[in-house]
């Protein structure tokens, strides 16, 4: 039995359907991520799990028991809020011991548990500090410690890294993974950052307009997005309008207007004449000054329009001679020159015939 079971949950605000018939099973010990753009309903779903909001339809079950009649303070579910929501009038120790005091634990037990959890988040020396004396990363750790100290069945994290700068965010991501593995508590992580979701999660549910578009492991979501929204939202991707010319069992022949004919991996349910898009990751696109005609590759001539050098990789934007525009990603790790092409260089782009996905628009 799943730890948390969300069954056909719907929530409406007037005419707006914020959460539309969503079903998710979250297993114990899982690091589960709700990913989606702002306004996709992920925060509403989170508030319903915490108990601050109730579904208009459907059920939320914890350990098989319906949570509908249980107020937030009685649910063994804690939340790390986006703004941390630390109590400004309490020290770090005061903040972290708050849930234990509310649960009626003895002073001795509180002292032991607070020390344990502060060690865990590397804040043992900050017990007497007030929140306003802490840095962003430290506040983040206090909020985590406060959420974990009473060992909830489920810890929900609402965009907890959003307020941190990039370097700190990366450090905290690694800490979060380690922490979750060490304490063994189920995490439900809410974010609009696909990079965070891919890096942290065991499973991701991609949400859009109140619905779940795809729910799977990070690598599956990245490599095999089920539709255009997921493909576009997760990572960078070339989206090319396409029409199916031939649907063979082992491959598709598709026509891209202004570009020509290409081959793509087979897709069940694709039929001749069907319109959609070809989704192609930039790292699957090769770019070279001259490409020997290799039979199993799709290739087109073009001109470098622009490039983006970010250290480890360079992203080239190439205008193809037939009018289409495509992004290609090249690692800079090759020996010799760090940069390969200049703006205006004539190049050829190519991608293998088993790369790219034909998706319904």
């Amino acid at each position, binding site marked *: 039995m799943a730890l948390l079971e969300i069954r056909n949950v719907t929530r409406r605000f007037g005419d707006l359907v914020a959460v539309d018939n969503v079903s998710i099973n979250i297993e114990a010990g899982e690091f589960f991520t709700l990913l989606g753009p702002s306004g996709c309903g992920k925060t509403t779903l989170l508030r319903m799990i915490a108990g601050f909001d109730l579904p208009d339809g459907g059920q939320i079950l914890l350990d098989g028991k319906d949570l509908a009649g249980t107020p937030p303070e009685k649910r063994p579910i804690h939340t790390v809020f986006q703004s941390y929501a630390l109590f400004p*009038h309490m020290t770090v120790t005061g903040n972290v011991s708050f849930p234990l005091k509310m649960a009626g634990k003895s002073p001795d037990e509180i002292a032991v548990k607070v020390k344990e959890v502060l060690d865990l988040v590397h804040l043992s020396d900050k017990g007497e500090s007030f929140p306003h004396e802490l840095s962003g990363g430290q506040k983040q750790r206090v909020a985590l410690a406060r959420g974990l100290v009473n060992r909830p069945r489920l810890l929900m994290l609402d965009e907890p890294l959003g307020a941190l700068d990039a370097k700190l965010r990366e450090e905290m991501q690694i800490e979060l993974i380690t922490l979750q593995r060490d304490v063994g508590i189920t995490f439900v992580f809410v974010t609009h950052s696909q990079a965070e979701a891919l890096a942290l999660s065991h499973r991701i549910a991609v949400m859009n307009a109140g619905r779940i578009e795809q729910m799977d492991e990070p690598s599956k979501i990245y490599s095999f997005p089920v539709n255009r929204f997921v493909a576009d939202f997760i990572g960078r991707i070339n989206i090319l309008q396409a029409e199916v010319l031939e649907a063979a069992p082992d491959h598709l022949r598709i026509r891209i207007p202004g570009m020509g004919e290409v081959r793509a991996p087979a897709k069940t349910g694709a039929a001749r004449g069907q319109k959609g898009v070809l989704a192609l990751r930039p790292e699957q696109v090769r770019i070279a000054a001259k490409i020997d005609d290799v039979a199993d590759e799709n290739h087109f001539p073009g001109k470098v329009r622009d490039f983006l050098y970010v250290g480890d990789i360079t992203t080239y934007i190439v205008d193809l001679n037939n009018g289409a525009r495509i992004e290609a990603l090249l690692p800079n790790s090759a020996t010799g020159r760090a940069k390969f092409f200049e703006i205006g260089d004539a190049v050829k782009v190519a991608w293998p015939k088993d790369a790219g996905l034909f998706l319904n628009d």
Partner: protein
Amino acid sequence: MINLLNTTRVTKWLVSGPPFLYLTLFFLLPSLIMVVASFRYPGDYGGLAPLFGVEPGKETGLTLETYRFFFSDFIYTQIFIKSFGVAMASTLVCLLMAYPLALLIAHSPRKHRDFMVLLVILPFASNFLIRVYAWMIILGPQSAFSLAVNHLLGWFGIAPVPLLFSSFAVLVGMVYVHLPFMVLPLYTNLEKHDPVLLDAAQDLGANAWNRFWKVTWPLSLPGVYSGAALVFIPVLGMFAIPDILGGTGDILIGNLIKDQFLGTRDWPFGSTLSIMLTIAVLLLAGITAMISRQGVRQ
């Protein structure tokens, strides 16, 4: 370098000079005049006797007589104690009545709040004395309120009590007049609380009582302190309300001081009472500050 130093010094004086001058002129000098007056003799027909003797046999110069007089009769200390009692009771009742109201306004939809605050300060639009006289009618023996209260008391076998010209009436007047001074700082404080803190407290297991007692109340203490100061200090010096609503025994420090200046025309003793009042208030403020600082440390 020297030039820069001079500039900063000039700037400093330009910034802090005017307030300094203002306080010297309107606070320090009058206080000093009062202190000197308290050590002088009263004049023959009120006012102050001259500092330097012109007629033989007349009392002139400085004396501690008024202070000796203050401590010689316990009645003055008693009036001080009673006044502090009334001020504390008024502050407490104001706090108990204002807190729920301030919470209600702070939790109302934003568009209604300004209107509700306006309602709180609306009584200031009419004259203070008229409002206090209105309470004479409300508490008077023939008023519906008075009759109803005494009728109710009758059921418990208690003889009718006059409401007007009593300590009760003084307390009612004090609370009525000073309630807005408690509501406004409380509201200003409560309105600024981040509602997500209450969500967090509830999420971490706090029931309604703990959410108030562990989060809202401690965060509102600055508002409570300023509200209490704004009620306590004016009540302490108030003489009109005890004059109008109080009985013969309801003399407070304010009345005493007023009588020295306008009634018996004993200016030195009036000054002494004022200075004793100032000292008492400062002492109390100092003690309160010390206690609250200790509270924060814990």
